[in-house]
Each structure stands twice: as C-alpha cells, then as structure tokens.
C-alpha cells in the first residue's frame, strides 16, 4: 500500500520532458519533489505563474509570490507571470499537457466530484472545473477509499460533479487505473496489495485482464 508520498512518486513517473503541468492542492503538490532526473517539466499555478520553483529560504518569503494554494514560492529562471485571464487561457486552450488533482469521488465513466458536499461547508471549485473540462490528460491522485472505508471509485458519483467524462487515469494508495469505455482498467497494484484487495475496494466496474504487475516506485 502507498502513502501520499508514494502516490506522488508514482505519478511523477508519468511526466514527460517538455511538459507543462498543473498540480492541484494536496497530494498533487508533492509530485514536484519527484521529477525524474534529466526531465524538464514546467509547473503552472493557476493564480498566474509558469516556472514555479521550490519554497523560499526562510526570511525570503515574498507576500507577492504565491501559488494557487496560497503558499509562498519562488520563481525559476525562465519563469513567467501573468494575470488570471491569461492563466486560464492556457488551461482552457489546452496548452498544459498534464493536470493532476485530488478527488472525493470518480465514476467509472471518468466523472469527477471534488468540490462540494451538500449540507456541509462548500469551499468552492476554484479552478478545478476549468481544469477538468479543458485538459486532455487528467490524472486523479487520491486514496482508494474514504475515511469510512467506502470506495471512491464508483459506478456513479453521488456528490455534485466537477466535470464529466474527463478523468483519464487514477493513482491511489492501492492501484493505478485507466478509465476506459468498459470502466476502470487495472494497470498496476501497489506493493503488497492483491487484485482481490483492489476489487473489494472498487465499487465501479473494474476490468482486470491478464497479470497485473506491481508498481515500481
């Protein structure tokens, strides 16, 4: 079974040289720490920066330089700063090659719910609806089940949707799965996790074909 860091490491393997990548808050943010050596990847933050670097050295924080999670950041050489309209022009216009975000639920047709729990506090969708509606390459990073142990990979989402038929790949603490016309297709098992474990934790349609290899982290 993977922890959050493991999920981030596994998703980092999906990165390709020259990609522009938007990482959501939470697990996705960790991915920036595990970019494979030799790959040039540029991170976009939707509040208006390309070329986001590491956190600043203590004492060098700049209130005017933050990411979409409102964290203080730095800008790398070659960075560019822009306004919110330009930021979402690059998102909506498909100039970003990969979007990774968290989710509360994903359906086996690729629907995603991650912004609202009716009756509870609603924090808002932020840029998530624009991101999932626009990107051709969306990976969801999340735990396979929620705190109550219920599957988050469902036939149908029960929560209000963020986007429909948009998720391409899911990396959880248990597995790597693609979303296909036939439902979730199991690609890899987390270390020490069996196909049966994954089947038990997956409510939506699950396609298991042939031998399912264990992830290499």
């Amino acid at each position, binding site marked *: 079974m993977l922890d959050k860091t493991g999920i981030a490491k596994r998703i980092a393997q999906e990165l390709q040289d020259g990609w522009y990548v938007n990482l959501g808050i939470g697990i996705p943010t960790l991915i920036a720490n595990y970019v494979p050596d030799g790959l040039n990847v540029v991170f976009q933050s939707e509040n208006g920066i390309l070329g986001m670097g590491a956190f600043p050295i203590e004492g060098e924080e700049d209130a*005017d330089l933050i990411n979409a999670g409102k964290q203080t950041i730095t800008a790398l050489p070659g960075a560019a700063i822009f306004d919110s309209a330009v930021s979402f022009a690059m998102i909506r216009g498909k100039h970003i090659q990969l979007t990774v975000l968290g989710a509360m639920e994903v359906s086996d047709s690729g629907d995603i719910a991650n912004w609202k729990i009716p009756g509870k506090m609603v924090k808002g969708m932020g840029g998530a609806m624009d991101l999932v509606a626009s990107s051709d390459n969306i990976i969801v990073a999340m735990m396979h089940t929620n705190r109550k142990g219920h599957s988050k990979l469902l036939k149908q989402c029960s929560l209000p949707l963020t986007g429909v038929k948009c998720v391409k790949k899911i990396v959880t603490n248990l597995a790597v799965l693609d979303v296909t016309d036939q439902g979730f297709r199991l690609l890899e098992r987390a270390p020490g996790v069996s196909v049966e474990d994954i089947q038990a934790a997956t409510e939506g349609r699950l396609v298991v074909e042939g031998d399912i290899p264990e992830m290499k982290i």
Partner: protein
Amino acid sequence: MNKIFNNADEAIAGIKDDMTLMLGGFGLCGIPENSIAALVNKGVTGLTCISNNAGVDDFGLGLLLQKRQIKKMISSYVGENDEFERQMLSGELEVDLIPQGSLAARCQAGGAGVPAFFTPAGYGTEVAVGKEVRYFDGKPHILESALTADFAIVKAWKGDRFGNLIFKGTARNFNPVMAMAGKITIAEVEEMVEPGELDPNFIHLPGVFVQRIFQGVNYEKRIEQRTVREKV
C-alpha cells in the same frame, strides 16, 4: 489628465449601499487593503462583491463580512473563513460560486464589450443549470455572460496619474481583468510615479481602464501559508 485622489476615503466616494463591486486579489495576495478599510469605515451595506476569494476572518473581505456589509459574494473559492461559513449556512449571505477561469473570462469579457461566450468549464455540473449548451467540435460548452461592476477596486505595485499600472509577481492575478470591467475603476498603488517613469512597453494595465488612483499606505500584505525550505 490627473486621476489622483488623496486617499482611500476620497477615492471610494460614490460607492453606495446595494452596489456591485469587483475586488482584485487572490487569497490575501494583491488585495486593495486601503480601499477595504475605507469601505468598512464608510459602512456601506448590501454589497454584492465579485472577488475570487472572500478573505480570512480578520483580513481582506472578511472585514466587510464581519460588519455584515456584504449581501452576496460571487467567488470561485471561499474556504478558510469561519464567519463566511456561518453566514452562508444561516442564509444571511448569498453565495454564487463560479469556476475560477470562467470568473476571469467573464470579467475580461465585461471589460471588452463581449456580452457572452462559450466555455467547456462547468458543463454537466450545477454551474451549467439554466445555461445554454452548444456543441463545438463534438464537445459540449455552456454560454457564460459578461460580468461588470459599479466599481472595480484593484491594487497595483506602481501607477501614474494617467492610471497606468504595473503589478508585482502573482499579486497581479485578477486585478487587471477586474480593472477593465468596472464602470468606475479605483486603483490603489504602493508607489505613485511620474508619467513616463513606467516604460510604455511594459505597462500591465493601460490607464484608459482606470478612473481613480491613489497612493496606499501601511500595506500589511499578510501571508496565508508561509511555506519555506531550509538554507542548505
């Protein structure tokens, strides 16, 4: 051409109860601190505020929420504010949540005289309820309308008396597009410079979009998430 006002109190003259305001900023980054303080001081109520976020409990738009001056918030993300949560759940506060990119594009459209446009964002979600759906290249899109405001209030780094503005770092965010969409746009700046000091080639927002400008004071520039690494 002189758009300079002496201070925030004078610059917000004419803002009345029940008006619609746009306020720049992302979280607490690039927010018009002086103008918000002046609005609290002025005590106008029934405001509809278009702003990406709603501040925190004791800063930013949270200050107007505390005083119950806001009737309705139009935002994309409103976490991190207990008073906001209380007012929303009790029904005291109306909240219209819209996708961040659509918010930016709707302000830009409002400033640019484009009354409506199609976007894929929000299709199939409750954001799309009641909105026209049309397919382009086989993909569904929804029709979104332009946003404008009685007053737009933005915060810039430097500006001149023509209203030309430059912003610093990611404090730019929504400020330029909201400045375009105000019927009257008020800009507060950290530093007022003489016309010509800003290179015409590197002005972020041409002065034509700004009607009033003033030199702000005592910027707190609070940081929401102070994240650092150790010096190696």
